[in-house]
């Protein structure tokens, strides 16, 4: 459960712990944000591009907005947040620097409007979702979050030994022949895995983060805090050793599949020995973009996650029983009346 940071807790962050930055427009003083559509910094107030300059706010507690002095809700792992009063996006220095400095990130490629369109397109066919589920007002609450990830590299040596069976049948006259051949199957391959991603956030469900993948690593870039302006963010909640077992699990699963692919073609294969040995491993820290839409219906939360790069959506639309009954009932009624009228009309003709 994430802990909300109070004023007292800020003190525990250390002397250099209260630094915040935000990007101010040189032209109008507004908060400059990173625009996925423009692939650059953009001032939504004066609409000028690349006019942002980094402004530092050292004074006051971590939870105090350097722009307006308002109280900003900051949780234990928050590295970027929006001031609820002046709407400025703040980035917390000590959570993106030092050991928390990400090595890389994929900047958001999908803006809020594109994301809303994707969600509407995907769930438009869900007839029995509540009326306001796809409304502009609800979708506007969507937040872009930079989710902390550990990326694991593994150099592996994979071996397999087993017995493979091939069966061949043919017919000659009234006799059917079945030939069974048994082979000794041996495989040895070196597989280098690069950047197996495992999320390091407690509030992001692991299974959802697995489903939201893949991300296209071609757009990975060196970390720069400017990419976080306009979005929320977290520092890693867990160190790499705590989540590595998930990466190892994914690596072993993929290595096993690749081994099996290499001896496909046998009718059946009996495993004698399979070994996946890790020769070398590395872990790096980075951020990946995810949009989150939280819809609340009948005291239940329905979270939706959208890959901020590819637009892949994970989430299940809520179901309105009332709408279901009304729509199905109306369709049934209309069909019955229509058929009855058609029956009478054709009878009269």
């Amino acid at each position: 459960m994430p802990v909300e940071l109070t004023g007292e807790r800020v003190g525990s962050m250390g002397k250099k712990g209260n630094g915040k930055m935000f990007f101010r427009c040189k032209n109008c003083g507004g908060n400059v944000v990173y625009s996925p559509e423009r692939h650059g910094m953009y001032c939504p107030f004066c609409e000028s591009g690349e006019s942002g300059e980094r402004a530092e706010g050292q004074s006051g507690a971590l939870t105090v907005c350097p722009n307006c002095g308002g109280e900003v809700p900051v949780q234990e792992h928050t590295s970027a947040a929006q001031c609820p009063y002046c709407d400025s996006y703040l980035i917390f220095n000590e959570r993106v620097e030092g050991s928390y400095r990400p090595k890389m990130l994929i900047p958001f490629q999908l803006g809020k409007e594109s994301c809303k369109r994707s969600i509407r397109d995907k769930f438009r066919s869900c007839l029995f979702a509540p009326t306001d589920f796809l409304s502009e007002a609800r979708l506007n609450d969507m937040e872009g979050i930079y989710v902390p990830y550990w990326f694991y590299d593994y150099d592996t040596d994979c071996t397999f030994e087993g017995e493979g069976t091939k069966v061949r049948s043919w017919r000659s006259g009234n006799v059917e022949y079945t030939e069974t051949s048994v082979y000794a199957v041996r495989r040895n391959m070196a597989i280098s895995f690069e950047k197996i991603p495992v999320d390091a956030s407690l509030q992001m469900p692991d299974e959802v983060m697995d489903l939201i993948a893949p991300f296209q690593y071609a757009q990975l870039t060196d970390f720069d805090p400017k990419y976080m302006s306009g979005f929320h963010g977290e520092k890693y909640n867990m160190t790499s050793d705590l989540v590595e077992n998930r990466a190892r699990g994914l690596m072993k699963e993929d290595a096993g599949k690749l081994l099996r692919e290499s001896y496909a073609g046998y009718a059946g294969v009996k495993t004698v020995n399979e070994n996946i040995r890790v020769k070398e491993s590395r872990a790096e820290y980075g951020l990946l973009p995810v949009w989150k839409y939280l819809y609340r219906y009948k005291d239940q939360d329905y979270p939706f996650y959208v890959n901020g790069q590819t637009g892949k959506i994970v989430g299940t639309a809520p179901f309105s029983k009332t709408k279901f009954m009304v729509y199905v009932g109306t369709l049934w009624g209309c069909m019955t009346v229509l058929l009855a009228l058609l029956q009478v009309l054709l009878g009269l003709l």
Partner: protein
Amino acid sequence: MDKDIKREAGRQYLRYFRFWFIAIGILILAVAVLGMLKRNAGSVPRTNSEAPAERVYDYADVLDDGEEEELRRYIAKAEEKLQIDIVLVTINQSVEGEEAMSKYGLRSRSWEQNMQDIADDFWDDNQFGYNRGFEGDGVLLMHNWYPGQNGEHLSTSGSVEREFSLGDIDSVLYAVDDYYDTDPCRAYKAYVDEVGRLMDSSLELPFSWGTVFILPVIIAAIYAVSGSSQNKARNTVAVNAYVAGGKPEIHDKTDELIRKNVVTRRIETSSSQSKGSRSSGGGGHHRSSSGASHGGGSHRH
């Protein structure tokens, strides 16, 4: 906020079902207009004045006077509605064998043939028919009560001949069969009713009312299921997504034959073919002795 959502829900609902509501409105209008036109079309007056007014000929004397009168009224009412002549004849005479042939001048020994001839001739001789005296629209039931030769023949003419299939003729005769031995008057009323049911063209329904009620239930169920289903997100990460270069570096790929064995099996073959044949019945159309076209069929008990 809640009010806005409710208003929006109403708008969505109307937008979604607008074509259904418009289609229903148009159909209601069409049914009303056609119904009125049909009602105003009125009935066609009887044009055949040659035929006698009598419709109940109880030569077998199986009905009392009250029943005969009741049937006359019953038939008159049906005739007005259906615009066909409906005639009932009961006889009590042998129509089968050599003796009947010579006694009544019949052309056949067969009960069916003679019943058909007598019924057709009775119709033709009396020049029955709602619209004209020759091949006019109508139907005649002849019931023979002679012991050992009890049975009915239904003779159809004009529009009834065109309309009635053999199945329809059977249906009328079965309606009579149900009651003739317990209540002849009720049996003959059933004859009138069945002819009326089969000839009533005021509302020929293209499909059954069962279809009207069951089909929408099936469609609504399909709609409910398809509308409730969602495409869940699936794992789309390729097996080599995180593999450097997209594929492993293979150092050893050996497939060495250890052993081989062959099993043989003799296949038993057999062939048999069967051919079936189906026969289909003919129609009930024929010509009477006067040359008029009739349809019909008989039931002998």
